[in-house]
């Protein structure tokens, strides 16, 4: 039997790079789509509000794992020769967007109504109101919960191991299959995840305190 060694640890850390990459992809994709959803949720058009609300409700009512399977098998139906990273990135984007969309909607709504009225009075169009008045203020409020949700994104990437994408969690399983030392292997996997997530948690809390002081 092979003992868990520094080689394994290095292998895990290298696999963690894929976790980081996937997280970044999910955040960028989910963030862009999430912003659209958030604006849809507060749109003046009823059908837009309804559509984005329905999307968010459905995704938030479905496990990420099932979203992942649907992306994985759905892409193969389309006849695409899928790399796991495509299905992984797509499903994480779809999933992240729903949560960020809902978080950001709350931030937009927490900008006082008088800001809308005041900016309307000086003749800004609706797009200009968003661009110059509402979104900058909402963004400030959005920083702590957004950074906090990044922790969820990093952790969520572990699920993509299930379709065989070799990121940190999958790498842990591979190491375990050769060492048969599940406890130490997965504890190390957990430690590496912790090392990635905890700074984000601290940052989120830091920003939240700063925001509260500024009030």
């Amino acid at each position: 039997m092979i003992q868990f060694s520094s080689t394994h640890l290095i292998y895990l850390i290298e696999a963690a790079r894929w976790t980081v990459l996937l997280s970044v992809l999910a955040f960028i994709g989910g963030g862009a789509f999430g912003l659209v959803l958030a604006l849809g949720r507060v749109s003046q058009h009823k059908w837009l509000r309804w559509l984005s609300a329905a999307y968010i409700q459905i995704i938030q009512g479905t496990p990420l794992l099932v979203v992942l399977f649907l992306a994985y098998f759905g892409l193969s139906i389309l006849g695409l020769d899928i790399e796991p990273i495509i299905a992984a990135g797509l499903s994480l984007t779809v999933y992240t967007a729903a949560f960020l969309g809902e978080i950001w909607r709350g931030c937009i709504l927490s900008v006082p109504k008088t800001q809308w009225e005041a900016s309307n009075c000086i003749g800004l169009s609706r797009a200009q109101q968003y661009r110059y008045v509402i979104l900058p203020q909402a963004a400030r409020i959005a920083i702590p919960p957004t950074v906090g949700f990044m922790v969820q994104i990093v952790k969520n990437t572990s699920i993509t191991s299930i379709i065989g994408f070799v990121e940190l969690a999958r790498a842990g399983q591979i190491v375990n299959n050769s060492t048969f030392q599940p406890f130490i292997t997965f504890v190390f996997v957990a430690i590496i995840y912790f090392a990635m997530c905890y700074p984000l948690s601290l940052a989120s809390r830091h920003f939240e305190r700063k925001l509260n002081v500024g009030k």
Partner: protein
Amino acid sequence: MISYTFDFSFLLTTWPAFMRGAWQTILLAGSSIAFGFVLALVCAIIRSGKSKLAAGLVGAYVEVIRNTPLLVQIFIVYFGLPSLGLRLSAETAAVIALVINTGAYGSEIIRAGIDSIAKGQIEAAECLGLNKLQIYWHIVLIPAVERVYPALSSQFVLLMLSSSITSQISAQELTAEANMIQSETFRSFEVYLIVAAVYLALSVLFRVVLWAIGEVAFVRRRKLRT
């Protein structure tokens, strides 16, 4: 464009398996929520308590759980603990991992509720002669839980959904049933569409049940709305 014909005919023979899976998920998530709530309450009490050491230990537990993936937590409980001499069934391991997870998230939520109780409330209760324990129960804990109950409920629904991950240690629940069905029918996409619909229904069900529990437990909510 590749043409694809949807075929849901497998449902004719497999719907009992979906039902069974849904029921197993209800049991798994329901018991995890119940135990997890108790653990969360205890942890929140300890964390806002006097003992710095105990509060620190619980704080560390909360941070570790919140900053590592549930999947890895499940692997440690199911694969890791047996190597330390503790052998568990997949379902037991699943419940343990989910309870530990809910305890951490729930305690943060409840603690926020406890922190939001104004000092004047406690002073008023002191002036009325309530002792520390009575104040803690009547004036701090109950209103705190009432205040954060919506957030707790959302957390519990998320827990139910993430219980799907326990299929990875072959715990018996909905996703595991679905995995089995798709390996027999090869209608993978359709199978997971159905599963998604069942989870949606379950999340509605959980929300409704949790809401009803809140209505019974917190009379004020019900009265003030009518």
